[in-house]
C-alpha cells in the first residue's frame, strides 16, 4: 500500500482530520530543507508536500513564486531534491511525501526516468497543477508501468462543476480541493459557495477530501470541518519559516498546534 493511503487510513480510523503542509524544497538550503521535513514528521504531520522550484509557477501566488525563485537562486533542482528524499528515507523517515511540481520539470527529466526515480527514492505522490485531467494519460501511463510509482493526486476547484465525477472516478490518495479561484496564498478568501462545493465533492469522493489554498490556522477551516477530511497549508507555512529563519522548533510547534486544534484537542 502506498504511504499516503496507509497514513490517511490510520487517520480516518482514529476519527481525526489529516494535516498537510507545503514547503518549497531547497530553502533555506538542501540540508535545512531536510531538517524542516524531519521536524514536521516528528511533530506528526500526515503528508508533506515538497514544492519543486520552477521558473514559471503560474498556479502560485506571490509567496510561493518568491520562494521558488529564491530556491532556484540557491541551486535547488529536481536532482538534488531526489537526493534529499533518498537521504531522509535512509534515516528512517517514513512520512508520506508528495512532489508539487510543474509538468515541464518532469518532462525535461523524461517521464519514464522520472517515475522510476520517484519509486526508487520513495516519493509517494505527485501534484501537477498544470496537468489537467485531459492531459494526464501521458503521465498516468508511465506511472502505471512503473512498480512503486507515486500516485497522481487529483485537484478539483469551485469552477470544476460537472467535471468533478470524471476527475474523481479513478482518483487515489486524496482529493486536493482548491478552496478559491485563482492562485495559492489568498489569505482565507474562500470561494463564496465553498461549503456547498466541498459537500458536492465529498458526496462523490471515495477517498479523503483535503482542502487547500489560503488556509492559515485551524480556525479558518472550522466552518467546513465536518465536511472535509483534512487540510493543506502552503503559503502561510512558508511565511512562518521565513520569519523564524527556518526554525525547526517553529515548524514542529505549528504542526502540533494546528493538528490539535483541528481535532478539538487542547493546543
Amino acid at each position, binding site marked *: 500500500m502506498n504511504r499516503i493511503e496507509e497514513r490517511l487510513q490510520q487517520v480516518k480510523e482514529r476519527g481525526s482530520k489529516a494535516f498537510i503542509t507545503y514547503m518549497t524544497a531547497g530553502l533555506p538550503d538542501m540540508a535545512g530543507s531536510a531538517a524542516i521535513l524531519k521536524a514536521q514528521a516528528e511533530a506528526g504531520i500526515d503528508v508533506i508536500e515538497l514544492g519543486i522550484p520552477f521558473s514559471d509557477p503560474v498556479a502560485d501566488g*506571490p509567496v510561493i513564486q518568491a520562494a521558488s525563485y529564491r530556491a532556484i537562486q540557491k541551486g535547488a533542482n529536481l536532482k538534488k531534491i531526489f537526493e534529499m528524499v533518498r537521504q531522509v528515507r535512509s534515516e528512517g523517515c517514513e512520512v508520506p511525501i508528495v512532489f508539487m511540481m510543474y509538468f515541464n520539470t518532469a518532462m525535461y527529466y523524461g517521464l519514464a526516468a522520472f517515475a522510476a526515480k520517484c519509486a526508487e527514492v520513495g516519493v509517494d505522490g505527485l501534484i501537477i497543477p498544470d496537468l489537467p485531467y*485531459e492531459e494526464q494519460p501521458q503521465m498516468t501511463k508511465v506511472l502505471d508501468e512503473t512498480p512503486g510509482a507515486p500516485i497522481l493526486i487529483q485537484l478539483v476547484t469551485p469552477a470544476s462543476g460537472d467535471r468533478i465525477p470524471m476527475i474523481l472516478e479513478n482518483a487515489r490518495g486524496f482529493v486536493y480541493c482548491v478552496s478559491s479561484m485563482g492562485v495559492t496564498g489568498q489569505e482565507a478568501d474562500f470561494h463564496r459557495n465553498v461549503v456547498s462545493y466541498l459537500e458536492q465533492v465529498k458526496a462523490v469522493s471515495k477517498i479523503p477530501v483535503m482542502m487547500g489554498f489560503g488556509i492559515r490556522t485551524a480556525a479558518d477551516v472550522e466552518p467546513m470541518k465536518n465536511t472535509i477530511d483534512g487540510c493543506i497549508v502552503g503559503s502561510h507555512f512558508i511565511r512562518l519559516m521565513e520569519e523564524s529563519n527556518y526554525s525547526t522548533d517553529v515548524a514542529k510547534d505549528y504542526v502540533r498546534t494546528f493538528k490539535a486544534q483541528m481535532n478539538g484537542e487542547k493546543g
Partner: protein
Amino acid sequence: MSSKYYGEFGGQYVAETLMNTLAELERAFEDAIRDPKFWEEYHYYLREYVGRETPLYYAKRLSEKYGTKIYLKREDLNHTGAHKINNVIGQILLARRMGKTKVIAETGAGQHGVATATGAALFDMECKVYMGSEDIERQHLNVMRMEMLGAKVVSVQSGSNTLKDATNEAIRTWAKEAEDTFYVIGSAVGPHPYPRMVKEFQKCISIEAKRQFMEKEGRLPDVVMACVGGGSNSIGMFADFIDEPGVELIGVEAAGMGIETGKHASAMALGRPGVLHGMRSYLLQDDDGNVQLAHSISAGLDYPGVGPEHAYLRDSGRAQYVSVTDDEAMEALAELCRLEGIIPAIESAHALAYAFRKAKTMTKEQAIVLCLSGRGDKDAHTIESYFSGKGYMN
C-alpha cells in the same frame, strides 16, 4: 470538434480552474466562426476602423538591389501600427458575444497592449494590460498610449520582468476573474483554442496577400516569409499558403547576439519541447528544465517559446525556420528606411534581413512576399541608441 493538438504540440496545460473556462471559450468561438453575422461585423471593423485591406507593395528599389522581386505586405499601415489589431478585433467581438465586460492582455513590445486598449475603448470594456517592468522601461511610448486609451498598465515584477512573466501574471489573474473577464492573447500561443483563434483572426493577411499577388503577377509567390516571436503575424501570413505546396514558407526567429552566445530568442534553433503558458511547444530551457530568458533587441520577439502550429510546421517540414542576429536586423532596417522610405518595426526587420540573404539564391523573375508586420515608430529610441552606439547613422 477540432483537435487540441498540432501533431505532438499544443494542448491545454492549464490549472483545473481554467478548464471549464476554456471549454466555454471553445464553444463560443466555434459558434461565432459559423455565424456569418460575426464575420460581417469583424470585416466591417477591419475595413472601416483598422483600414484594411493593406497594400501589397512592390519594393522596386530593394528588388533591383537584391535581384529578385520583393513584395511587402504592409501590416504596418494598420491602425495602431501593426498586425496585432486584426486579432484583437476578432477576440473582443467574441468577448462581447460571450457577455464579458472586462478584458486583460499581456504585452511585450506594447503593440498588442495598445491594440487591446484600443479595442477595449472602442467597445467600452474595462482593460488591464500586464507588462514586465523591464519592458515598461524600454517601451515607454506604448505605455503612455495604453494609458491615454483608458487601459490600466500593470507592472509585473517577477522572474525576468518581461513578456514571459507578464503572460504568467495575466494567466493568474484570468484564473481568478474568468467569470466576467476575457483574456485576449496576442500571439499564436497559449492553451487551445488560442493558437487556432489567433490564426483565424490573422488569416486575413495571407488571404489578401494571395489575391493581391495573383492580381499583380498572375501566379503564386515563390517564397512567403515573416518574423516569428510567438508567431502571430507569421501564422497569419502562412495560413492561406500552407496548402500551396509550391510556396516556400520561411519563419525568421531572433538570433539576438548570436545563437552560439546563448543570448537569443530562437526557440526552434536549439530549443527542445517543453510546456509553458498552457501549451507544449519548442521552448528555451536550462539543464534543470527551467525556462531560459530570451534575448533580442526587439521586444516583440523576446519570447522563449513559439506557437505550437509553428513547431508542427517545422517538424513536418512544411515551413523552414531560420534566425538572424540583432546586427543583421538593424542593418536591414536602415536599408528599408533609405531605399524605400519605410521605417519598419525591429521585429519585421528580422524577416527583411533574411529576405536579403534568400534573394541571393533566387532569380529576377522569382518573388518573395514578406510580412512587414509593424512600423518602427515605437522603436525610435532603440534604433537611435543602437546606431549612435555603432556610430554609423548621422
